[in-house]
């Protein structure tokens, strides 16, 4: 279950970035999963559901996109919103 560690990394990266941008909600995160990364996409989804808790993550969706001939797992982008008027 090294996917748990990957999702912990994802949460720290996005939380740090969202704080820097003043975002209070994350709607969607896109992760690129290399087909040679030995990472299970099902396990990523499971770990995300278990670990992405709290107001910032309420209703957030995890999208996964397989990248051929790559061993990297990247958080490519995310979408969020600030407080708004």
């Amino acid at each position: 279950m090294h996917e748990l560690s990957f999702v912990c990394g994802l949460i720290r990266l996005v939380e740090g970035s969202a704080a820097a941008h003043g975002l209070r909600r994350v709607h969607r995160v896109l992760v690129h999963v290399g087909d040679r990364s030995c990472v299970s996409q099902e396990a990523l989804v499971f770990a995300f559901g278990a670990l992405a808790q709290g107001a910032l993550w309420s209703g957030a969706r995890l999208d996964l996109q397989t990248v051929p001939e790559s061993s990297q797992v990247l958080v490519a982008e995310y979408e969020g919103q600030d407080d708004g008027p």
Partner: protein
Amino acid sequence: MKVLLAQELTKVNSDVAAGNRRRLASLGVAMVNIIGSPGAGKTKLLEATLSLMAGTIRTGVIEGDVWTSRDGQRIAACGIPVVQLNTQGACHLDAAMVSSALDNLNLTGLDLVAVENVGNLVCPASFDLGETRRVVVLSTAEGDDKPGKYPAVFRGAHAIVVSKVDLIGHTDFRLESFERDLRLVNRTAALFPVSARNGTGLDPWVHWLCGVAKSGRRQSVSQRGR
């Protein structure tokens, strides 16, 4: 609002690993990350290796295990400084665990830190610990088809130790088949067929490891010179 990140999910770990690497380099200490399946013979290899290097290379050991301190006790019985890490279920060591283990070793008195990772050929491959060199141990009983089945761990290795070669006659393991499969994913790793039980092949492996330890010392001297 869309934010582009394009960062590896292991970045948090990689940053801590880079810190470990800088800390060890500044002290002239090398570190090897030893990865292999449960029962591949990682601890047995360390016991045999440490007794041959005693008096030449001052080594400390970080033992990664899910629950027990059995391996740590075996290393301590050799008179070697050892820190036992229990991952409480996690399948790999990460750089932060190794950082706290390094705090508990007297690094200024060492040339080499040998990290025995949790027995697993998959997860440890993804986590840089800040090591100078990465070593994979595979026993003949596990079969010669493993490089193709677990390419990530074999691709990232600087040396491969094929252990338990004294048993090879009782297995279907063929060194030539293994090397052919290995070279498809890793063309440069040094290959050491050994038996830690009867000593076969240990000398070239120990020579390689001593070279890694000495490279750590040279690196530190050249850094101080700058």
